[in-house]
């Protein structure tokens, strides 16, 4: 590939390398993946910074995200206007944070945003219920779900306000031994 690629200007590529955890090759590979998702929409030439958004339905059909119960929230968190339609930058951001090279703090921050379904900067019991239901696909009874949510809040809520703030979440997730390896999508 070397310097022969015509998709990005050299400044763009350098900027992308600074902003994400990916190398040149990986950025180009990711661009081609993005382009494959919607060949009609995404131009092969990004020199002029076209404002192209791939709709959410196409993103959620990617094999990496297809079976993930949280794919909708992931797309919403990383898209610019919160509706799941992603530009190339959002796409690169998403996979950069979910890669194995992202530090724990960054992943914890985004995990908090993903689990915060109503975007109020707190994981309240309602958010927890939705998380549990998505994880078990409704196979637990409502009492069991309520019990689990209550126990989670009891364990992690440090400032005793009945919901989890970012600090509570980060404190709790720092002790999880395999958070780094599970919050990881390989592409």
């Amino acid at each position, binding site marked *: 590939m070397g310097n022969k690629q015509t998709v990005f200007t050299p400044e763009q590529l350098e900027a992308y390398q600074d*902003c994400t955890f990916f190398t040149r090759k990986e950025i180009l590979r990711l661009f081609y993946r993005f382009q494959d998702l919607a060949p009609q929409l995404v131009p092969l030439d990004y020199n002029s*910074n076209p404002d192209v958004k791939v709709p959410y339905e196409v993103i959620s059909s990617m094999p990496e995200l297809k079976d993930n119960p949280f794919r909708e929230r992931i797309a919403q968190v990383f898209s610019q206007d919160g509706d799941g339609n992603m*530009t190339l*930058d959002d796409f690169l951001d998403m996979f950069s944070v979910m890669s194995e090279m992202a530090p724990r703090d960054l992943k914890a921050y985004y995990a908090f945003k993903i689990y915060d379904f109503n975007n109020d900067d707190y994981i309240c019991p309602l958010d927890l219920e939705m998380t549990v239901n998505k994880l078990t696909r409704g196979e637990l009874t409502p009492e069991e779900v309520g019990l689990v949510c209550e126990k989670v809040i009891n364990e992690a809520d440090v400032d005793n306000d009945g919901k989890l703030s970012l600090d509570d979440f980060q404190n709790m997730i*720092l002790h*999880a031994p395999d958070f780094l390896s*599970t919050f990881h999508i390989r592409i």
Partner: protein
Amino acid sequence: MWGNLNSPKTGENLPTKKHQKNPQKLKPPSPSPVFSPLPSIFASPCLCSPLPRKLQAGRPARPASGIRGSEGPLRLGRAWARLAGAPKILVPWRTTLTRIGGQYGAGTESYFTLLRFLLGLNILGALFQGALTLLPLLLLGPIPGPPSQGVHQPCGPYDPLPQGLVDYPTLLINLLSGEGHLEWSPLFYGFYPAQLSGGTFRLPVAYLLSTFVSGLLCLLLILHRSVSGLKQTLLSESGALTSYSHRIFSAWDFGLRGAGPVELRRRALRYELQVELEEASERKRAEARTRAQWAGLWATRILLNLLVLAMLGAAFYGIYWAVDPNKVLQTPVLRLLVAYLPSIFISAANLLLPPVFGLITGLEGYPRSRQLQLLLLRTVFLRLASLVVLLASLWNEITCGGKPEAEACATCGYNSAERPCWETRVGQEMYKLLLFDLLTALAIPLLVQFPRKLLGTVCCGRLGRLLGTMEFQVPEEVLGLVYGQTLVWIGAFYCPLLAGLNAIKFLIIFYLKRFSLFFFCSPASRTFRASAANFFFPLVLLLGLAISAVPVLYGIFVIPPSKLCGPFRGQVTIWAAVPHAIQGLPRTARDFLFFLGTLSFAVPLMLVSSVLMVYTLTLASSYGRQVSKLKGHIKMESKSKVLLAQRIVALSGEERDL
């Protein structure tokens, strides 16, 4: 704010990106003032979405230090990881095992990994023993002819080979029970001569050495496996994973792809949560029990334990009774049945009793994890003790109940009338057990699992589903493996090619179990803690090794060897060959080796080992203390982070007010 490209790592763009996301929403002042300054701690590159705007502003992008500067070491690390992973390709069945793990869970995968490990052990042991006993016999010495027939010998006539022509049924029975032509063959101990031609290679010493070295090798390999597994488990299960919050937020693997693994993980998660909730409710119920209920519960428990003991006692008595030589029957089928009677009893006990135990433990009112542990303990005891009972029965027969002055054992020290070659008899018993175990493993898919699957498809409704769904019961299967390996360890001294036969048997069982897994079994609904697989199974294996060492060592040191067969004929004990051989060594070597056996070596060795052990224990406890102190440090660090951030916000608020 876009101008700070020289320090993109600070991630100051993060809160601004949030503002851009919802420009219409008026954000209420966040109650926790630490929210805004927190991203400064990230020390990570900024996000890319602001980028196009920055570039449109026409500013040149100055590459700051950061991810590109560290690209070199990053690439090197990746290449090294790829190189270190290369030897793993040599290990067989890797793809099969990963497929099994993905579809059926980590517990099932651990069973197959254990099977592969034992296969390797057996092949190693077989090669060792073959190289030290069979190979010299074939290369050097005279192939021993049949023992002298008809001549009156001091310790009873020993006549294993059948006279004249043999009909097919008898041939088959001889093959299956290790008698006839097979008895006087390199398969069994009795065949090997006391001396090889040439006189330089001492077969008795090599025979003993091969047993000890292969036993030691097995011990070292199993210890290595259990220690590395323990290290992994200690790291990953520091107790924190049992908390609900970790299960909800970090147990889902975002990298899972495909409907199969996703479904598996979901079921495992659901099962774990249900088990936790059930245990919590069980604990609450246990606290609420009255005195009378406790008394009733304990009475039930004692009664059920007595029932379990009674069943075990009945099984053991049956096994003890089945080892009876005095049955000369005419029909070949009956003869075969009598020859296999101990094996049939042991296999029947091992198949029928564990489900009964399962029902009984369900009635005892323990929480579910405790129930599983109790069930496992009982099954382990049943499996290993049945072998011990069989050996006790054999011992009784060979040594006339431990009374050397009894009539049958007076002349030769062992029961020479019935067992002129007792080592071969023990070897034959182990050989029959091995064959019957293989037969059972072949019969179960055919006679139990296949009809169940058929019935499951034919019958509809709940009954059909109950019959048709079969799961791979990992603990029972692993205990079956341990049982098979233990009887090989017992029998390998008396039947040198048994390890090789066991390797073939395990190979057949691997493909058989894989076939039945994919065709009959549905994915596991129970999760398996890694601690169980990595620690408990090697522990039971070690227990089997320890149990198998006892009869072998007893036979080597106490019981006099047969006078008519084997490489140790004519000696006082089997072990006597070793001092005899040491006598032939040069003086210094001889003195050194004899010194190793004296007390003046053993006692200082024991003292030094106990000192080392105490030192290691103190080191371990001090490391544990250090770990908890460091954990406390981390907590304090995060608290001080929060405090500092609050201070910054307060000060900047003041600054703005000024």
